[in-house]
């Protein structure tokens, strides 16, 4: 459904991704692991159209190349990114943030029931719908960021380190929400540091190291991999 072919990305002199090829299957969860600086976020940004790959690299969505599209076109096509650090519209109310999520033409029909769905998924948001986003706690902000992305009814949801800065309880809440999404058939691409949670959630895993795919496989295979154990599980 989504396929990255030979993607290389460089910022000035620095090559962040080198010849990366990744496959994302429909209604599956694909996790991308790696240390800080391994190129995980760049990968998602490339898909979302925030950075351009070097010539030769392709991003195919339903076999249509989108690597040169502008971000809003990619959202319209059905790929939503929950960016690192959430990037909410802090000066706006929860409800406005969600409404903006439904901005693409495609997403305007049925906006209201999707809004309801978000509120059932994240009850806290329902309570705080009029509150300014920037005044909410970290956990709530992360929920809102995800809900905003879901408002565009994405075919694929990209999550960049959603567990960033959350306490363990919130982290497990978060992952249970993600699990419910996947059970609902939502395809997810997840960039995480939190290896075990990701391993539990994901159907397939890529490990990035210094901008290259170091290894890939099912969670089961990964659990065996000594290098992963050491480098990313910190044990």
């Amino acid at each position, binding site marked *: 459904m989504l396929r990255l072919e030979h993607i290389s990305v460089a910022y000035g002199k620095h090559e962040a991704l080198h010849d990366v090829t990744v496959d994302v299957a429909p209604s599956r969860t694909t996790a991308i692991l790696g240390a800080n600086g391994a190129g995980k976020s760049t990968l998602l940004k490339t898909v979302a159209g925030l950075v351009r790959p070097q010539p030769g690299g392709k991003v195919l969505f339903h076999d249509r190349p989108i690597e040169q599209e502008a971000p*809003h076109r990619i959202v319209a096509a059905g790929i939503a990114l929950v960016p690192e650090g959430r990037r909410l519209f802090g000066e706006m109310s929860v409800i406005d943030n969600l409404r903006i999520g439904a901005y693409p033409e495609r997403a305007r029909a049925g906006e209201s029931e999707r809004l309801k769905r978000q509120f059932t998924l994240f009850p806290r948001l329902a309570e705080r719908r009029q509150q300014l986003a920037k005044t909410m706690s970290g956990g709530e902000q992360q929920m809102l960021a995800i809900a905003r992305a879901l408002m565009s009814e994405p075919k694929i949801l990209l999550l960049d380190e959603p567990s960033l800065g959350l306490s363990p309880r919130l982290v497990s809440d978060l992952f249970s929400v993600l699990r419910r999404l996947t059970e609902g058939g939502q395809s997810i691409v997840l960039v995480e540091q939190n290896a075990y949670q990701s391993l539990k959630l994901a159907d397939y895993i890529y490990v990035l190291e210094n901008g290259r795919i170091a290894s890939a496989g099912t969670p089961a295979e990964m659990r065996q991999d000594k290098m992963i154990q050491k480098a990313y599980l910190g044990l």
Partner: protein
Amino acid sequence: MFEVVLNGLVLGGIYGLIALGLNLQYGIARMLNLSYGEFFTAGAFASYFAITLYHYNPLLGLSVSVPVAFAVNWVIYRFLLLPLIRRAPNRDALDGDVVLCTFGLLFVFQGFEQVYWGGNVRGYYFLSFPVYFFGASLPANRLLAFAAAMALGGVLILVLRKTRFGTALRAIAIDPIAAGLSGINVLDLSASAFALGGAMVAISGSLVSTFIASSASAGIVYTLKALIVIIVGGPGRMAGAIAAGLLLGVAEQVGGYLIDPGLTLAINYAILILVLLIRPTGLFARG
């Protein structure tokens, strides 16, 4: 004294009106357009020619100046500013480039106005009969402009608060990248916000020209006034702009009355500096 304050309020409302457009350009499209005031004078001249050459109602000048200003500003954003945005390594560098570029445009436009309309002050009389209330008299044309200011301001605020388009604009103002990730076409919307700003200042130019004579070199003065207003009011805040306009208008009139009419700008600047030093986000900015 009451009359002075009243005049101040009316003048202030008009300052607010003049600032609304720049607030769209700087507050939302994030481009400080120093050639802004030139579209004010363009609007003024359009009305001037409408009445002096063709003896039309000067406000008919809007039918020309508004679309032209909209188009020209759109072009400026799309073909002059966009390349700068694309090449800028960071915000500071971009601001610098934009300031210089629009300064250049300011001179170009001003030059053309001087060549084709001469350097002299051009004014005319329209709706200049006084209207009386509470003993104070105000010329009808000022009241018209004031009413227009309040109306336009109100409409703009409603659009930004209530409509999808407006919400998207606010989103862009806060975080263009996140806006893009939410499916908003940041470039097109910014361009149209910028162009809209140009159109609005043309409107204010026409309205103000009914009672304030205008000259080719007057543009920069209005750019400056508008800037002071939006910095005091908080960039991107339409209500703030109106409020700041009123504040400055009253301060200017009362100051001019009590101290010296030669010092109005000085008074404006005193206020600006105070705000910049005490509350750089603007008096009426949230948080």
